[in-house]
Every structure is written in structure tokens, then in C-alpha cells.
């Protein structure tokens, strides 16, 4: 139960292609994150899986059944909207009961299930309230409860944490992950926040301009980005890219260290690093500067752990090194990753 296949799906709005020939399949019970900047087509793709938006081309298959032409209510999916879309005139109880009532579930059964869902999200005390009397976090829980109460085969989430404040977001993220593990329902989660994507996803799908740029585990996405878009979109600060002839040399800021701190410098490449600006962030230090000859692609960032207390000053040049195994190469024209990682 809970396998979604997306077969060569496109969606055009007028002349613009919001989603461009996307092929994708989920594994059963996995937590799949669609990650990309706003306007990359991730929400449109999610809405097409839900059936709210009709694809221009292509097919959707859920659990072996082609659902492309089926209305949302016949797809057995649940969706949480960014705005939560709680029914403002109904109490929390009736909000959660709504999907069950729509399926003609018998009253006693409805009551049992609502109690179960409310217990799971710890909102048992709020059942008699109206949505406008709830805080942001409470609304989010009600939206999740309403989505889960019907045992969907797929669970779709459209940026459900973006309306919460930063502190609440972290705890809600953790709860969401634990909850998904417990119920084991295939989940497709849309976000533009790469931290959320890294923390939540079994696999991440990075999208840009309607196309899939890479599909992989958080580690694959971070360690071996498929192209320069993924390399610079995931990670903060993004991967450094140095121009070197026809190729771009990429390395993560946290792999770029003062040369003496790199163990066994025979496996490392050393650069003279001209420091221009320093940021002390407590747990870490960000060192901005330039490497090599004067050209565009020579601006790099180094991210040093707070425990590394080597004194550095802006305006001076230091030998910095990056281990060869941490170097990635990209084709300068296409931006695609090049196999073979020695510099």
C-alpha cells in the first residue's frame, strides 16, 4: 500500500511549463521530500498527485491503479495544506470527523477514530473549539489529525511547518518524523527549506524550473550533488565552486580548513586563502575570502567549528586546504557533475 508512480507528467499554465516531464516513484512507507525554490513546480506536482490539478500530459498511478482522471475523493489520499484549510465554521471535532462523514462511516466508529486521532496529536482538550480559537501549532495538529483519521494510502504535505515560528518548527519537525515512522504511511512532503528536507526525508527530490535535478538520500544529495544547482541550493552556506578551465571545482565550506589542521596534507589540495571578512556565530566561524588569481569564480567560504580557535584576521592570506576526497567536479557549461574526483 502507498506506492505513487509519476509517469512523464507535465503541467502547462498557458505557455509556462510548471512541471516538465517528471518521472518519479515512491517506495512504500517512505518519507519523500520535494525540495526546491518557489516556483520550481513542487507544489503543482503535489496538487496533481492529489487530483486538485489536472496534468497536461502523463499519468499518475497509486497502488497500481491509474488515477489520472479520478477526482481527489476517489484517490484515497490525505493532504495537509500550507494554510491548514480548517473549516472555520466547524468545531475541531467536526473538522476531524469530516473525511469520515464524507465516506459515510457509522457514527460510533467516527467517534472512536476522532478520539484516536485527537489522542495521537494531543488535541483531545480542543475538540469543542473553533479553529479561530486555536494557536498556529494547534491548528497544524488539527490539520494533521484530520488528514490521518481516514487511513490514507498516501499522505501529502504542502509546507505544513512554514506558518509556525522557528522554535515550534523544530519540535514539530521531530514529532512529524516520529509520527510518520509509527504509522508507516507513504508521505510526500513539499518544502523550500533544505534543513527541513535534510532532517525529514528518507529521500529528497530536488526540483528546479519544473524539472527534477536529483533524487537521493539526504547524504547523497549533500555529498554528491548531481549538478551545480543542487550543489548551491542544498547546504548553507552553499558549496564553493572554483573555476578551473572547463570545469568547476566544488567543495563544502566545512571541508576547507587551515592547512595545518588538515591531517596528512599529502591527500589534500592547498590554496592561498585571502580572508576578506569573518563572522563569529558561536558554534562556528564563517570565513569569507578569495582564492587564486583574480577572476569571477574564486570567492569561497570556509566554515570552521567553534573548537578550532586558530586566530584569523581579515586582509591577511593563509594557506587553506581541502582533502582530495572532498572535491567534486562539474562541467562548466552543463553544470553536471563529472565522475572521477581527483583534482
Amino acid at each position: 500500500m502507498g506506492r505513487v508512480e509519476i509517469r512523464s507528467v507535465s503541467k502547462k499554465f498557458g505557455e509556462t511549463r510548471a512541471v516538465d516531464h517528471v518521472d518519479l516513484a515512491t517506495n512504500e512507507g517512505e518519507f519523500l521530500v520535494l525540495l526546491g525554490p518557489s516556483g520550481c513546480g513542487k507544489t503543482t506536482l503535489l496538487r496533481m498527485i492529489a487530483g486538485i490539478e489536472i496534468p497536461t500530459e502523463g499519468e499518475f498511478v497509486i497502488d497500481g491503479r491509474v488515477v489520472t482522471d479520478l477526482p481527489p475523493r476517489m484517490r484515497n489520499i490525505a493532504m495537509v495544506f500550507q494554510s491548514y484549510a480548517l473549516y472555520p465554521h466547524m468545531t475541531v471535532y467536526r473538522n476531524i470527523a469530516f473525511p469520515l462523514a464524507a465516506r459515510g462511516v457509522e457514527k460510533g466508529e467516527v467517534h472512536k477514530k476522532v478520539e484516536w486521532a485527537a489522542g495521537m496529536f494531543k488535541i483531545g482538550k480542543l475538540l469543542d473549539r473553533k479553529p479561530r480559537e486555536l494557536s498556529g501549532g494547534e491548528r497544524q495538529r488539527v490539520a494533521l489529525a484530520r488528514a490521518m483519521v481516514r487511513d490514507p494510502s498516501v499522505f501529502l504535505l504542502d509546507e505544513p511547518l512554514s506558518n509556525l515560528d522557528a522554535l515550534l518548527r523544530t519540535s514539530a519537525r521531530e514529532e512529524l518524523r516520529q509520527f510518520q515512522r509509527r504509522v508507516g504511511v507513504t508521505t510526500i512532503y513539499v518544502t523550500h527549506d533544505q534543513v527541513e528536507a535534510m532532517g525529514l526525508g528518507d529521500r529528497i527530490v530536488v526540483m528546479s524550473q519544473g524539472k527534477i535535478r536529483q533524487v537521493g538520500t539526504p547524504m547523497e544529495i549533500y555529498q554528491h550533488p548531481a549538478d551545480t544547482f543542487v550543489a548551491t541550493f542544498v547546504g548553507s552556506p552553499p558549496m564553493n565552486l572554483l573555476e578551473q578551465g572547463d570545469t568547476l571545482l566544488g567543495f563544502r565550506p566545512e571541508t576547507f580548513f587551515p592547512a595545518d589542521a588538515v591531517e596528512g596534507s599529502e591527500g589534500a589540495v592547498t590554496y592561498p586563502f585571502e580572508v576578506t571578512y569573518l563572522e563569529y556565530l558561536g558554534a562556528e566561524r564563517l570565513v569569507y575570502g578569495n582564492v587564486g588569481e583574480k577572476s569571477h569564480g574564486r570567492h569561497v567560504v570556509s566554515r570552521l567549528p567553534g573548537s578550532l580557535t586558530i586566530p584569523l584576521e581579515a586582509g591577511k592570506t593563509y594557506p587553506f586546504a581541502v582533502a582530495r576526497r572532498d572535491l567534486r567536479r562539474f562541467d562548466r557549461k552543463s553544470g553536471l557533475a563529472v565522475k572521477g574526483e581527483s583534482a
Partner: protein
Amino acid sequence: MTSPVPPADTGGGRGGIFDRRETLAKLLIAPAVLYIVAMIGAPFVLAILYSMSNATTGDPSLHLVGLRNFAAALDDPVFRIALRNTVVFTLLSQSIVIVLSRVLANALMKPFRGKGIVRFLVMLPWTAPISLGTIGWLWMYDSIFSPIDWVMRYLGALGTATGILGPQTNLYWLGVPGLAMASVILVNVWRILPLATVIQLGGLSSIPKDLIEAAEVDGASPWRRTLMITIPLTLPIVSIAFLFGIVFTFTDLVVVYVLTRGGPVHATQVLSSWTFFKGIEAGDLAQGAAISLFMFPVLAMAAVFILRLARRTEVV
């Protein structure tokens, strides 16, 4: 040595009239107060006084005679017909208006070719002067030259032995009691519909799209979405449209006056037309005032509900 701080520029003096909040507030609210007192308060008081007097258009001096005029109105069989007709006329036309305006509003929510023109045409009856529009309808309903009858005759529904509307050549829209009432209701629907449609459109477009989509995903059929989401969420604003329509219809004189003058034999007589005939045309100001005051409780109730609902729509 520090340089002295220059005194703040106060613009000189203690400010003009626009700087004195108290005076300015009174000045700005004065036209509204004046309007309400002169155009609503005074006539209302006058109506109450007249209704308890024996004033006529020939002798409008006030001699109070108590509640005699109200008793006389209640005793008059035409008054009772007018009261019943007013209720039937108002409720029937408003029920039709609410249903039709919802249908129109739903259609106008969807994008389609020529939507601008349709929207314009829907609004047109509202922009035409009531009397002009109604005179147009007078011709449509003409006993001999009615275009509706032409069409019916052309279709064979009228004027032939087998016609479903009968063998006679004309329907006499305004000459047959039931048909006359239906004709008057139709014109009133035509007139109120644009405003009701615009209000309903406002209500429908205020529902976030997310809610409807969420209900779709939650498994609700189109019927259930309408009954459980759209109607409850638009109920306050639809009620306002309904009450506005009631007020307009209840007090309307023009449609009945132009089309039927209350006839045939009082079959379309309503309170406002009866007030006019009794009080102005027949000259019995006191009776006219008493009849018109029977409308007051209904209108006052409608006003209270409108104000309440208006507040409720603000909260949601």
C-alpha cells in the same frame, strides 16, 4: 559649550479648526445627523402623528383622534388582501431571487469566454431606472401586443385548438388575478437579481480556495461540499442579500403601480400601493399613514437582523 536646542516649530498660534479634534468631529458628523433627522426622523414622527389624526390632503391640520385609523384599516377587507399579497409577493420573489442569484454567481465564478459581457448584462437591470424598466415590461405584458404572446402563438402554444396555453389569442398577463401576481413577481425578480448576484459573488469569492480543495481531498462529493462548506460559509452574506431584498420589495410601489395599479380587483394590491391610493390619490392622509405604519415592525426586524449579520460576517 553646547548649542542651544531650537524651539519646536508649532506653526504659530494654537492651530486652525482642523487641529481641534472635538470641533472637527462635530463638524464632520453634522451632515449625517442633519440628514437622519430631516429625512428620516421628521417624516417618521409625522407619519405617527398623522396616523392618529383625521388629516386629509384638503385639510392637513392635526386633530388627534386616537387609534381609530388603525382599527379602520384592519376592518377594511382590501387592507387584509394587500397585507397577504405583500407577504406572498415579498417571500416568493425573494426565494426565487436567492436561488437564481446563487446559480448566476456560481456561473460567474468560473472563467469563460464573454464573461465580462455576461456580467455587464446581469448588472444592467440594476442600472436602469425602475420606472423605465417597468414601463418596458408593461409593453411585454400588453394585453394585445405582448411579444411573449407573439412568441407563444408562433410556437403554436397559444391561439390554436391544441395549444397547451389555450385556444385564445392572448394570455392577458396583467388581467388575470394569478397571472398578474406572477407577472409582478417576475419583474421584481428581474430588478432585484443583479444586486443579489453581486452580493452572492462577494460571498463566494471570500471563501478561500484551499477550503474547497481540502473538502475535495477529504472525500466530499460536490453536493456535500455545497451543503457543508459553501452554504454555511456564505449564509451570513446570503441572509443580508435576502433581507435587503425583503426591504426593497416590501416597500416597493413602482412595479405594482406601473404594471397593474393594484388590479385586477386588488389581486396585486400591496401595502405600499394601498397606502398611496388611500393616502394620496383618495386624499385620506390619516388612513394612508396608518396603513404604511403596518410595514414598520417587519422593516425594523429586518434592519435588526441585517445589523447583527453584518457584525457576524466581520468575525468569520
